[in-house]
């Protein structure tokens, strides 16, 4: 049974949650604490999967509690359920909390967030890897872009469009912005995947404040970049974005789907960045091994970590609350056939574009078949592949 710990200073809130969750009693084992010390005492003796905590509490407050949980129980998914209405304060828990939900919330919003977080565990089966991913506060960026964005943010005259254009070239910053904009702090029903709109939603002022007070963005060291060949990885993500959009446009997709395709492309290899930043030594070995033997890196990752960068990226962005269709695309971009729910068009175009990008650059991975032909034929796209290849080739 999955175990969830709720923390709130107000007993009436805990009682309400307890009753509301009664209907889930056969699936979830829920416990309640009315203060941070009480929560820590419970955590010290029992293992939990998720913590849902308020932010403002007397004594040790919610963000301090989540910080302790992050350090001591990194495998747990951390959700904030806050009554605070101060936007900057609320978003200040970013990095500490995977999901942010505002009070009052409809019971279904909370239930869905919990259900979804638990489902995501299926993507990444390794406990150890999950603990590493849960601990991540940000996905590092290329230093050059990171500094450019910071400089633009510091420049009061810089426009939202300029900043959005820079951020949308970087997976880490894009993922962060989408996490913020899709947190339930902002009352909107549609999930946002367009960076420009996401920034508009959050507000440049808020982003500026967050950049100075919290670790919303971070950067790789140049040594890391050179050693792991990360520069190519960033270029690859942009190339995949270009091809995937060509494919999706050829299939007459809506504007909204095109935005999704672009973001999913940019983020499809985010898992590599996560591994590079957090398991640098092991990941470096995988990279070197690929260079030496030409074996696809995903197979080496599987051997080294028990999962590939696809699952790692999917899991992280999933617990960050990015839209499911993006998360599924990231998690299954090598093996679209295994994806049960995802959006076929987004998944297909990113999968195919990724394969083309490797194929065109003659990267070592093309020795192994990259395209999942069974999937493409089942989806009815067998006859489109050559047309797509030609269109993408002409854009090289």
């Amino acid at each position, binding site marked *: 049974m999955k175990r969830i710990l709720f923390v709130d200073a107000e007993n009436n809130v805990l009682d*309400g949650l307890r009753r*509301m969750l009664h209907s889930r009693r056969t699936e979830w084992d829920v416990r309640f604490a009315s203060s941070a010390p009480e929560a820590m005492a419970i955590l010290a003796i029992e293992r939990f999967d998720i913590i849902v905590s308020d932010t403002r509490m*007397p004594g040790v407050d919610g963000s301090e509690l989540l910080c302790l949980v992050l350090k001591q129980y990194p495998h747990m998914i951390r959700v904030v359920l806050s009554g605070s209405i101060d936007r*900057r304060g609320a978003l200040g828990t970013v990095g500490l909390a995977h999901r942010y939900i505002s*009070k009052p919330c409809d019971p279904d919003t909370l239930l869905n967030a919990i259900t979804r977080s638990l489902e995501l565990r299926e993507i990444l089966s390794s406990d150890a890897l999950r603990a590493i991913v849960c601990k991540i506060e940000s996905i590092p960026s290329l230093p050059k872009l990171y500094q450019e964005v910071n400089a633009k943010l510091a420049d009061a005259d810089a426009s939202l469009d300029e900043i959005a254009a820079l951020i949308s070239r970087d997976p880490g910053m894009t993922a962060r912005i989408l996490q913020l904009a899709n947190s339930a702090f902002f009352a909107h029903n549609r999930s946002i995947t367009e960076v420009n709109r996401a920034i508009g939603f959050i507000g440049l002022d808020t982003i500026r404040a967050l950049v100075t007070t919290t670790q919303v963005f971070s950067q790789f060291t140049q040594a890391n970049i050179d050693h792991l060949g990360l520069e190519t990885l960033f270029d690859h993500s942009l190339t995949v974005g270009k091809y995937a959009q060509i494919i999706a446009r050829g299939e007459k997709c809506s504007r909204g789907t095109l935005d999704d395709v672009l973001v999913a492309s940019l983020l499809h290899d985010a898992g590599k960045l996560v591994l590079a930043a957090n398991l640098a030594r092991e990941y470096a070995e995988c990279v070197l091994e690929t260079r030496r033997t030409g074996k696809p890196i995903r197979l080496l990752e599987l051997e080294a970590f028990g999962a590939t960068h696809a699952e790692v990226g999917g899991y992280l962005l999933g617990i960050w609350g990015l839209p499911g269709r993006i998360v599924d695309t990231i998690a299954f971009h090598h093996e679209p056939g295994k994806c049960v729910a995802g959006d076929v068009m987004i998944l297909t175009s990113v999968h195919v574009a990724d394969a083309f990008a490797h194929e065109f650059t003659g990267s070592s991975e093309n020795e192994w078949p990259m395209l999942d032909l069974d999937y493409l034929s089942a989806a009815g796209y067998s006859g489109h592949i050559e047309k797509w290849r030609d269109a993408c080739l002409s854009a090289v």
Partner: protein
Amino acid sequence: MAPEAKQVPNNRPHSKPTILGFQTDHTNRLFLSAIPSILIGIDPSGKVTLWNAASEAAFDLTPEMIVGRDLKDCEILWAWDIIEKGIRTSQETGRLAQIEDSRFTRPDGTEGFLGITITPIHEEGASCAGYLLLAKDITERKSLQSQIAFAQKMESIGQLAAGVAHEINTPIQYVGDNIRFLSEAFKDIQRLREEFRRLLLSLPDETVVQYDIREHLERLESEADLDYLLGEIPRAFEQSLDGTERIAKIVQAMKEFSHPGGHQKVATDINRALENTIAVTRSEWKYCAEVVSDFDHEIPLIPCLPGDLNQVFLNVLINAAHAVADKGGSFETDRITVSTRLEEGWVVVRIRDTGTGIPESARNRVFDPFFTTKEVGRGTGQGLAISHSIVVDKHGGRIWFESETGVGTVFIISLPISAEMILPAAA
């Protein structure tokens, strides 16, 4: 601190009354025309003896058209009744009189405000030789002031809205959860009842209930967790009602607090105003201090502008909460005491906190506009300046504080209980 009510400069007249009349020598004449303010001289009977260049420009009337005539008969588009009153005051007191905001119409038809100082002129040894009216177009300053006052009001409203939203979030959360539970519990009980009914109908008429049916019923009950439901339902109702009551209370307090601020003073219950302010700021203090009210319930209603006065209480109370929060206060150890007393015809409100205290270096500047010790975004530095103006200028009251670093601060606001007591400065 409170500026003293209009101090009277010692107007020792110049030895020669040269500036009045036509005998003014050339240099003086040049000086006068260089003064950018409107300068009008009148003799004791009210006849204009001086009309400088600025006056000419401001009203588009030449000295030839004005000098020698009775000021009240001149075609100047201004509020003569107010100016006449000012002259009379000056005449009666023998002192300088000030008019803060007298409307006038410019030659181009636009309206503005004049700030006027009326000074009696004394000839040596003799009685009054006339009056000097020094006036300036203060429209821009006034509009700036009202913009600042408005901005502070918006800041207060923002704080108010934040506090209220925070207070309402929590009960709505648990009322919603309880209602979800109740509706699911109702469905469970309904299903249970249908099952019972079905079993009942299936029983042959005369039978005693058979053992396996009893077992079946017991199983159904336990599946539905009936004991739990029956135990929790009444509490869910009770807490939901408690929640809606909390919401109703805060909405009521907010309604009274945000009393549409008219320009007319109304008899106001200061205790109630303070109670409402305490209620709407709860989210600011609830985790850092206990708020204790110590009201004198015998204090009379006093004439005031409730909206403005609430703003003062809000500013002071929020400052108190911040002072306590800054030293890491808690509900158990820290306290904000709000008291009212009737003291010699004044209602005295004291808001005392056990916070950080005001640093020595800041004490003289607390009421200065734009002075703030808070970080950017936590205040514009207008709160106490505006509060001072509301208490002193609009209500003829006083506001001051006593503070000790590390021990706390008490703000004292005293308000006259009747209009007659209001200081003349409050005109």
